[in-house]
Every structure is written in structure tokens, then in C-alpha cells.
């Protein structure tokens, strides 16, 4: 087929290009710009090469925060994905229960991050919070302000409460799209409950699970608001994730150069890990 060349077509994509330029490319380039320069005020900038990058990569502070991020994402993925599948499997497929369950499941997703943080911050307080006060009254020592384990526990339980619904809804969508004939055939074939899950439901949920996994990974890796509201990165630095550290550096200390270098590294890590997960998961699909 002959291709029609018409350069006026470029005008059609111009609005998108402008939009993307202002929303993504230009801000990103500003960050790139800061990351390779140093300033002593007066709006005078000096070339610093990869200096800030090596500073960031040499600092323990960065590696510790990265470690916390990986641990946090690992834990919540290990809880939310299986739990989400389990809940989705047990949700009703038809009748009155469906809308009720869907609304209940969607509720946590509708609450803004900082509100979720505030809810749990108050909920867990030993002096007035329902959870904290009850636990204290039961004689269970719990204090997220000064105990590292309690702080992590609070953050993880909160994240599971907030985001498992997303996994549930995605899995549920995958499950209801399986035609009845599959379950009927499995009955005829004498398949056990486990075999139905392993050979029918799991393969059919694979695609939505990939999406759920990537979304939850990226989102949990960028977690900021909730720990900022609940623990402020403490006790000590025990809940200081990369994002919190970054904001401290950029806005607290106003070290724009190192902060810019760190943002870029942070961005590249998320990009790289997402790409790896995606490739691994779709490759196993292609081999089938």
C-alpha cells in the first residue's frame, strides 16, 4: 500500500507534544540540569559533572533508605497479592452480595493518601486512638512513636488495608470473565478445588495479576505521604524511605544538587525494576 506523506499531520500531534513537554520532559530536564551543577547562591551555577551522583551512591543514608524501600515493597507484595487473590476467590459471583462487596472493597481506594495516614496515626495513638488505647488496655505494649517494629507494623497493616482492595478488584475482574463452561468441564473432568485454581483460575488471572503486581510495586516503592504523616520517618530513621529522605534533602536542607541526583537514581531504579518484572513475567507467558 502507498503511504501518504503529509507533513501537516505533525500539527495534529503538536498539542500532545506540548502537553507532555510541560508536564514531563521539561520538569525532568530541570532535575537533570540541577543534578550536574552546583551553586553558592546568587543564581550562579557551576558545572559539577557526576559529582552529586557519586556522592549519593557513596552515602550510607541512600543505601539504607533503598534497603527499607525494598523490604517494605517485598513485604506488602507478599501479603497483598495472595490475600487479594484469596478474597477475590471468595467473593460472590452473582446476586445481592456483588454490589455490596464491590462498594466495600472500593471504599479504602477512594480515601486520599494523607487522610489514610491521618486515620491510622490517630487510630494507633496510645492516648486516644481506638487501636492503640485498646492494645494498651489489654496490656500489649504497642507504640509506633518509639518502637521500630510497631512503626513498621502500623505502616504495613495500613498499606494492606488501603491497597489489597485494588488487587481484589483486579483479580475479581479476571475471575468473572471466566466462562461457566470451564467450571462445568472441570467438574466433568473430576478436578479438585486446587486443580481448578491452578489450571483454570490462576492462568486466567495471570494478566491482571501482572498489572496488580506492577502497580503495587511502583506505588509502594514511591510511598511517601503515609509514613510522613504517621511516623515522619521515625523512630530514628527507621521508616525514612527514599522519598522521605529526598524531600528532607531537597526542601529541608535545600541541597538541590544531591536531591536532583537522587531523584534521577530513584526514578531509574523504579524504571529498571518494573522493566525486569514485566520482562520476566511476560517471558514466562511467551514460553507457554
Amino acid at each position, binding site marked *: 500500500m502507498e503511504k501518504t506523506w503529509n507533513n501537516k499531520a505533525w500539527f495534529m500531534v503538536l498539542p500532545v507534544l506540548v502537553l507532555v513537554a510541560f508536564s514531563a520532559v521539561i520538569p525532568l530536564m530541570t532535575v537533570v540540569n540541577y543534578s550536574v551543577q552546583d551553586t553558592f547562591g546568587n543564581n550562579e551555577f557551576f558545572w559539577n559533572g557526576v559529582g552529586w551522583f557519586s556522592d549519593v551512591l557513596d552515602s550510607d543514608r541512600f543505601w539504607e533508605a533503598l534497603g527499607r524501600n525494598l523490604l517494605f515493597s517485598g513485604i506488602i507484595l507478599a501479603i497483598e497479592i495472595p490475600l487479594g487473590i484469596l478474597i477475590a476467590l471468595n467473593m460472590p459471583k452473582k446476586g445481592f452480595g456483588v454490589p455490596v462487596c464491590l462498594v466495600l472493597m472500593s471504599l479504602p481506594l477512594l480515601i486520599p493518601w494523607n487522610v489514610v495516614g491521618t486515620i491510622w496515626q490517630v487510630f494507633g495513638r496510645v492516648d486516644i486512638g481506638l487501636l492503640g488505647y485498646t492494645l494498651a488496655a489489654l496490656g500489649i505494649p504497642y507504640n509506633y512513636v518509639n518502637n521500630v517494629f510497631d512503626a513498621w507494623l502500623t505502616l504495613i497493616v495500613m498499606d494492606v488495608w488501603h491497597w489489597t482492595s485494588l488487587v481484589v478488584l483486579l483479580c475479581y475482574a479476571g475471575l468473572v470473565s471466566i466462562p461457566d*463452561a470451564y467450571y*462445568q468441564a472441570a*467438574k*466433568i473432568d*473430576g478436578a479438585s478445588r486446587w*486443580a481448578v485454581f491452578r*489450571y*483454570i483460575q490462576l*492462568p486466567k488471572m495471570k494478566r491482571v495479576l501482572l498489572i496488580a503486581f506492577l502497580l503495587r510495586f511502583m506505588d509502594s516503592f514511591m510511598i511517601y505521604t503515609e509514613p510522613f504523616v504517621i511516623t515522619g520517618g521515625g523512630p530514628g530513621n527507621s521508616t525514612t524511605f527514599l522519598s522521605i529522605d529526598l524531600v528532607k534533602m531537597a526542601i529541608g536542607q535545600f541541597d538541590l544538587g544531591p536531591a536532583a541526583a537522587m531523584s534521577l537514581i530513584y526514578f531509574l531504579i523504579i524504571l529498571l525494576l518494573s522493566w525486569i518484572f514485566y520482562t520476566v513475567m511476560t517471558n514466562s507467558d511467551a514460553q*507457554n
Partner: protein
Amino acid sequence: MARINLDHIRHAYGPNPKKPSDYSLKEVHHEWNDGGAYALLGPSGCGKTTLLNIISGLLQPSEGKILFDGKDVTNLSTQDRNIAQVFQFPVIYDTMTVYDNLAFPLRNRRVPENEVDRRVTEILEMIGLSDRAKKKAQGLTADQKQKISLGRGLVRSDVSAILFDEPLTVIDPHMKWVLRSQLKRLHKQFGFTMVYVTHDQTEALTFADKVVVMYDGEIVQIGTPAELFERPKHTFVGYFIGSPGMNVLPAKIDGSSVDLDGQKVALSFAPKIAAGAKTELGIRPEFVRLGREGMPVTISKVEDIGRQKIVRASFANRPIAIVVHEDGEIPSEPKITFDPNAINIYADSWRVGGEA
């Protein structure tokens, strides 16, 4: 292999059925012989799939009992009934190989692996997928997938019955023919009880020894293909079987004489008809003779379908179809006569009286 008894089965999908129209399946009381090949034939929504699912145990009937070889299985689950069923659309286990797909029903029942291998290899041979045995089932075409579904139905040698729910819908015409004859051959070889649901009369008539015609939730006739053709018990069977279907003409009946809007036809018997019933005369297009004598008709169209011609005409103010041999002449002043042995008389749509 088993004899299947349906004991006053009725089914309604909604709760609290009261009037007959609440039932998707009106009363079915029938016995399927061990080793018989039955076709359930009927238009979409007539209850044939419902009946099939009741036999396989995927549905619990609202009323009635099912017996396999005299044993009540109404409350047994599908797994315990030992039934194989093939569905209209292919169901395959994506992540398994073709071989494992076929082995699945056997392995679930803990059949020894050497027996599994023997059965699966045999079925692979039959459905012509031996060269793909080790490939994932995911990449296959729709008709290959359906062959796997069929194969899974046939792989167990000990089943009570094999049920087919329009299994050849997605298969292309040539392959349909091949698979149908293979099924028929298998049936002869192993003597499974087979129940085959279809809305395609050719499929039903070639596959089955006995055809069960269903209409609006009821079994209207059970018979051999010849019986269905020559003596349709219900006008619906007349319409549904045969191409074109039977001519059904409103008729006034007085003793053994029939009045078709002024045209008189004599019968060889005097049907007994209840007063006030709606009476009709049915005659297959194949048994209407076109010639120079008889009752006048007006021809509106002639369709040449190769071996024969179908003449569409108007007779006694009603449309009528007449089948004429390909060399048959069509006179300029056409008249028709009916083969007296092929006339069926219907009262309120059900056939009456005097067997010829």
C-alpha cells in the same frame, strides 16, 4: 455404560414455579437404553441443554428423579455420576500441553500412568493431534481446541454416558463430517450411551438411532429418522425436520373427507377428532404430485437445487411447497394431488388417528 431413566423430570430456573410456562423443561419421563445413540433436536431455547445438564448433574432438576441403571443419582454430584460431557465451545487448560489436557480427567481419577498413556495416545491418534502432543494447548486453532475437548470426553473408557452439547458448532464443515463418522464408529466399537444435542437436523439424523425432538420445553416425538419424516407426531416436527418442511394446511374434516378451503380430499380413514379442535392437514412436499389433474395451484417461484426443484405455489389461498424431480415437467395449468398414504391429520397440532 448405563441405562438412564428420567422419572418425571421438570425444571424451572426461577423460584416457585406455578404455571406450566414457568418451567423451562416441562415434564420429561423417558428411558434411554444402554448403548443407545440419541440426538436431542430442537430450536434454541427449547430446553435441550437444560435436559443435558440435568443428566450430567450440572443442574438439579426442580422435580423428578434420574436413575442410572436403576440407581437414583438425582442428588449425586457430576463427579460421582461418572459422566463425560463435551460443550459447545472449546474448553482447554491453557497452561497444559495437549497430552496433559487429555490426560487430565484420567489423572484426576488416579488412573495408572501406563493406562493413561495408552488411552491418551489412542485419542490423540483419533483426533489427529499426535504431532502436537507435547505442545502447549494455548496456540491451537478453535477447531483443534474443540477436538481436544472432544478427546477429553472420549478418553475415559468407563463412563456411564457421553453427552455432547452441540460440539461441532465451531468446526468447519469438512471436519464436522469426519468427526461425526468417527464418533459413530466409536459408538459402534465401545457401545457408549451417547446423547447428542444439536439444532442441525442433518447432524441429528446421521448421528442417532433415535432422535428426540424437543419443542418449548417438551419432548414432542421420539423416533427413528424415518418415523420423524413420515409420521411427524406434531406439526412442529413436520416443520423442523425436512427441507423444506411439511406443508400444513388448515382443514375442515368431516368423516373421511377433508375440505381445504373448498378443495376436497378423501382420506383412507376417518380420524376421530374432538369437537372444537383446530384441524390441519399435513403433507410433505415430497409427496405432493404436480401434474395436469387434481386441484389447481398458482406457481409463484421455482427453486432449482440441483437434483430436484422446489416449486413454491399458492394452493387454496395458502403457500405450499412441492418437490419435483430435476427432469420433472411443470405444466402450464398446474394441478396437484396428494399421495393418500402420506397425509397426516392434526388436531390442535398433534397427529390423530388411523395408522396407514
